[in-house]
């Protein structure tokens, strides 16, 4: 059981990395990877929301959609759940932990309808995971996103001070870098 969970985690982080393998959540990946500290903030927020969303959407699927044979409402109901969840978490954090809100607050609304978060929820169902497996897979997906974002931010901070042809400055070179990173991540396939 434990080894199966570990393998799910490793697969989610490295082999099926949400950004670099599934090409989901590119918007924050390109947008928030300019500076390392904001990348850390975004990565943490995404990991947190993914874990929460993975668990709740599994519950919605298992207790509402399946018994009433409403699986075709998956996408819309998941988006509803995730958006409401993020809003709720934002309120709670703002009240109870202002320091954490200062660090995460700006990023939370951005993730509300992030496709990586929706993606992890849908994939959990598609792969037929149970509650614990869903949680591990979601958490792994979040960590993988965090990992990719940090790597990208580190590279982009260095790109800032290197000489780049004028036409390639900004997003173009960022996309090329992302592509090369994705190729490098393909080396993990076959690990598990």
């Amino acid at each position, binding site marked *: 059981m434990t080894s199966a969970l570990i393998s799910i985690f490793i697969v989610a982080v490295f082999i099926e990395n949400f950004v670099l393998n599934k090409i989901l959540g590119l918007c924050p990946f390109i947008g928030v990877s300019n500076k390392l500290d904001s990348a850390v903030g975004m990565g943490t927020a995404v990991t947190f929301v993914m874990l929460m969303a993975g668990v709740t959407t599994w519950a*919605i699927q298992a207790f509402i959609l399946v018994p009433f044979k409403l699986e075709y409402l998956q996408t819309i*109901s998941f988006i509803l759940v995730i958006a*409401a969840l993020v809003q709720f978490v934002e*309120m709670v954090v703002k009240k109870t932990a202002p320091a954490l809100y200062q660090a995460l607050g700006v990023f939370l609304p951005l993730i509300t309808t992030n496709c990586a978060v929706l993606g992890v929820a849908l994939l959990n169902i598609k792969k037929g995971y149970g509650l614990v497996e869903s949680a591990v897979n979601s958490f792994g997906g979040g960590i993988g996103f965090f990992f990719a974002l940090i790597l990208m931010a580190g590279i982009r901070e260095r790109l800032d001070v290197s000489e780049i042809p004028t036409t390639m400055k900004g997003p173009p070179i960022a996309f090329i870098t992302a592509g090369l990173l994705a190729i490098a991540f393909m080396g993990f396939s076959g690990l598990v």
Partner: protein
Amino acid sequence: MFTQIITAVLALGGLGFIFGAILSYASKKFEVYVDPKIQQTLELLPGANCGGCGFPGCAAMAEAIVKKGIPVATCPVISLINRQKIEELLGLGDKTDTTKKPVFKAALVKCNGLDTEEYQKFSYMGVKDCQAAVLLQNGPWLCPHRCMGLGSCERSCPFDAIKIGPHHLPIVDEEKCVACGKCVLACPKQLIELVDKEQKVHVKCNSTEKGADTRKVCKVGCIGCGLCQKVCAYDAITIENNLARIDYRKCVQCGACVAKCPQHTIIMENKPEFKGRVAKINTEACIGCTICFKVCKFEAVKGGTPREKHEIIADKCVGCGLCATKCPKKCIEMIEE
């Protein structure tokens, strides 16, 4: 078929209703009271987040204005209209002293060095950043105080007011400059100072090296000769560490030092051809009151006996304008040479 539609509508509607109820309950339960005045103040602030006030951004500044009552004028950028609006909003309009004339400052770059090869130690090919260039043998220029010219100040400016112009020297657009002080911090050579926009006479050098050493590495550097100090009728210039310094509280911008400076280090802003001024007495109006004779510190006025018409000795006149301001008949004119 029909039941399917009903269950779908009920399930989704129910979910939406439940979440809506939870959220509306949570928004009351977890509400954090934010003074609406903070938001209104924030909207009236410039929103450039330049940090010129000393707070991290306009939001922090707005909070400090509302909660701690710091004066709105701490913001160097805010327009008069918006300032009044904020003061009206918070009901502290009468507290601010309106009689005092506000000083509008702008950045001044204290270097006018040349950039031909003879003034370079080596040609720098590294990262385009002044701090980085300074790390490498104190920069590529012979003069240890010369502006790096790589534009760290330009990149730090949130108002687009400072630009690297010709000769690897920054040019400040005083219209745009709001004196937030970002460039002052960005310059590794401490060449930038915030000076009243109305002041036009500046020492364009920051070299504290000995005169001979400065002369070796720069044509327009201050050598600390002290001629400007002697020629200043207002005691506004002092020489410290081989560097002339203008006390802007005393300077009246007569330009005597500009004309005298042998190195052309002291300049009159916007007037590169300025050669100094000289006093001219309108002999018809002069009544020979001897005031100008007494007030002149350079013995440049002929006369002394009452009723005798005065005359200016052009060689001795430095153009300080003391006599012109003191003349009761206003018959002395300052003419640019």
